[in-house]
């Protein structure tokens, strides 16, 4: 794929991934076939900032975990009042990273 397209993708979607992922994504996209560009371009990612807001507001109901697709952990959090309140607070700090990992997983399925 052209470097210009790849850089455009990295610029618009960089905030959805961990910084250490970006180089790998760039390398992978550069050697990828041009026909997949449409698919990559239309992928929907979870915004880590939105996840943090949800975590702050509905963290003790597990809504943040449901939102990023960790249904099992979400149920666990819901049933334990946000893990006695401790897990909910820990997740305020972990949820952005978890969301970025989920986005990476989603992208990996395509590229």
């Amino acid at each position: 794929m052209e470097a210009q397209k790849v850089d455009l993708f990295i610029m618009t979607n960089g905030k959805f991934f961990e910084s250490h992922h970006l180089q790998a994504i760039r390398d992978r996209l550069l050697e990828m076939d041009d026909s997949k560009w449409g698919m990559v371009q239309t992928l929907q990612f979870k915004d880590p900032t939105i996840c943090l807001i949800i975590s702050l507001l509905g963290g003790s109901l597990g809504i943040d975990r449901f939102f990023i697709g960790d249904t099992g952990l979400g149920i666990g959090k819901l049933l334990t009042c946000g893990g006695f309140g401790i897990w909910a607070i820990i997740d305020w700090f972990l949820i952005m990273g978890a969301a970025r990992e989920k986005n990476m997983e989603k992208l990996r399925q395509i590229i």
Partner: protein
Amino acid sequence: MSSALSRNKLYLLLLFTCSLGWIWIYYNFAYNIGNYSTDINTCIIKQATGVPCPSCGTTRSIVSFLSGSIKDGLYSNPLGLIVLIIIMVSPVWVVFDFLFKKKSLYIFYGKVEMFFRIKLVAIIAIILVIANWIWNIQKGL
């Protein structure tokens, strides 16, 4: 597998939460038989707003179940039954999987996750949880 959790990570997390849960239940069981006191309140929502959350009363429910009064347990919070089953079954299952080097619980966990992703199931579950929440507020847990 939809989940990013690895098998060992999930099992460790389960064992850790279950042991915490059992310690918490033992503490409540030993000190509050008969007259439950709400000195220690672990729920952030209840402390911040004074309104109980959907799973408030789960400890009371489990303590009631363990002391044999199923009716009280269901009245306190029906979710207590689910939590009790989970914390009773999952440690045994984890140990079984470790001993026989299987991942049956991990596979089951993935299946449960997929089950709750079905839209109809999710909607029904959400309605039930909200109904339980309203009931909790009415009961004034």
